[in-house]
């Protein structure tokens, strides 16, 4: 088991290194340079553009060959120095440190919302199979899967903020993160991000529950005269959880990398998604590489955690 974890960790580091390298090369080989932003201001003031550009590039070592830049970046990274953000004029680590909580909060709340409602609705739909409720749940889940999250976000803003005026049309960063006001303005973003996930969970929970409802141990449990609540809650649900864990963990990875970014942009939440998009547009390579790297490690960690969780949920599973 320990060997397995060590092997997986080494493997994760290799994958992350590969992704880091690809991102770095893409950014540094591209035709734009991180100093372009400064140059625009300087050109407007009528100063000599070329000499200033060269001075800045020399200062940050951007004029060296790309291999040398790459190795010095890697050396810095291994020493814990994540580089300097040109667009925000602060160390990358500081920039990420002040923004990650917004993304984390959004993803956490949306995931909790989706799991509780999705698994709950899926269970009910399975228990009430072929009733009106079941059909309604399956239509709802088809709609939820097919609706683009960012458009749903726009529609929620249109209805609840623009026309009904229940919420503000912009995200106010003046509230403390965990204050009630802040949580209230997160209701729409959490719904926009969570409904797609929720719809998927309804579907998977329902089918996983139905698979197990037909098993013989359920008949046995009922024959023993156990109350239906115990049969569903203990015997069926616990056996249906394993495939669900895979789906939920896998989804979490795609939420981190796709949905959350777009939701942040639609609602103007200043999380890592916004930070990385702004960094891409400013060609702030250190920030982009750092955000990509953090996200990659997160996904790799989630994958490892999923596999380890299996051994706990299903003791029959063993890794060599």
């Amino acid at each position, binding site marked *: 088991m320990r060997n397995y974890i060590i092997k997986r960790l080494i493997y994760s580091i290799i*994958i992350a290194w*590969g*992704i880091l390298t*690809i*991102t770095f090369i*893409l*950014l540094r080989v*591209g*035709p*734009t340079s991180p100093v372009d932003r400064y140059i625009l201001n300087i050109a407007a003031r009528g100063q000599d553009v070329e000499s200033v550009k060269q001075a800045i590039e020399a200062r940050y070592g951007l004029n060296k060959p790309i291999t040398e830049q790459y190795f010095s970046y890697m050396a810095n990274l291994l020493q814990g120095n994540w580089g300097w953000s040109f667009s925000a004029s602060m160390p990358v680590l500081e920039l990420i440190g002040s923004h990650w909580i917004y993304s984390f909060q959004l993803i956490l709340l949306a995931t909790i919302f989706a799991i509780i409602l999705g698994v709950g609705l899926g269970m009910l739909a399975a228990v009430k199979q072929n009733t009106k409720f079941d059909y309604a749940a399956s239509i709802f889940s*088809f*709609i939820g*899967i*097919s*609706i*683009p999250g*960012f*458009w749903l976000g*726009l*529609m929620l*803003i*249109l209805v609840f903020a*623009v026309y009904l005026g229940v919420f503000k*049309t912009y995200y106010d960063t003046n509230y403390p993160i965990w204050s009630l006001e802040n949580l209230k303005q997160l209701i729409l973003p959490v719904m926009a991000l969570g409904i797609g996930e929720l719809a998927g969970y309804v579907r998977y929970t329902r089918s996983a529950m139905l698979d197990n409802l037909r098993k013989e141990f359920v008949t046995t449990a009922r024959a023993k005269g156990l109350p239906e609540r115990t049969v569903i809650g203990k015997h069926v649900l616990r056996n249906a959880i394993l495939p669900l864990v895979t789906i939920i963990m896998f989804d979490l990875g795609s939420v981190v*990398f*796709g949905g959350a*970014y*777009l939701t942040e*942009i*639609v609602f103007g939440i200043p999380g890592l998604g916004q930070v*990385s*998009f702004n960094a*891409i*547009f400013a060609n702030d390579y250190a920030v*982009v590489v750092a*955000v*990509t790297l953090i*996200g*990659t490690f997160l*996904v*790799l960690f989630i994958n490892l955690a999923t596999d380890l969780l299996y051994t706990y949920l299903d003791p029959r599973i063993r890794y060599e």
Partner: protein
Amino acid sequence: MSEEKISRRGMIKKPVYINRRLVRYYWDRLKKNKLSLAGLGFIVFLALLGIFGPFLAADPQHVDFDIKNLPPLGFSTQESIYDIKTNTFATTVNPGRPDHPLGTDSKGRDMLSMLISGSRISLLVGLLATGIALFLGTFLGVLSAYLGGWADNLLMRFTDVMMTFPFFLLLVLIVFIFGPSLTIIVIVIGLTGWTGAARLIRSEALSLRTRDFITASKALGASDNRIIFNHLIPNVASLIIVMATLSIPGVIMAEAALSFIGMGDPMSTSWGTILNTGQHSLDTAWWVAVEPGIMLFLTVLSFNFFGDGLRDAFDPKASV
């Protein structure tokens, strides 16, 4: 069932996988799923709209500020202008006009023509990018399964790296570096989207490889090429078709999301581009954000319904 077996045996003699009776059999199974047929109907409608619509509709990029923000037919907007002489508000009502049945956006562009142009772009991007991705995925998956050993290992580790890559961030990054054009968008989505297909087709091909008919073919002296193209690929064909149908909506959504954040091809009008305009005029012209989203939603829903129906139709174990 017997009909299928005969067809499969007939297939070995015929190098091309189009077998009339088999297609007929699948079509009969598909027909029983009404939602799937409805999905197919909408896809056909969309395809016709995309192919012929732009020839009939007005220029989607024609700007006319005199008719900006016209509501769709059947709706009307109110405009209050303060009259300084009489010190009163003069309210005029702007009803929708039949020559712009779906209204106009903030630059006076006709919504109907823009939506028609968008359907062409979306289908084009969806089909081409999925085509590239599935071609690569099938090729690499079958190759990996057939070669085995270190080549298989290497290919699958590479697939792991690609799968962990933050897909949407990569898309934004590459489009930013190489400039926003439809060609780049299609190529990037195609080159990054093959991983899931490669894995699935590899595992399917691996299980096929050990089957008796492949062993028999080898014993008869068939070349590797012949086994791959005449036996492996035809047997995963149904899998490929289902994957194609179910991965097109993801591609369409990715393109829409990209255009929505302002990184679409500026030379063409896609649903995402319209949504981008609509986002900024939610309070004055709601229809600009609503209409393309509905098209997007219906398209994704149709592909999901159709793909689900196809999967059941191809699956001999599923009861339809």
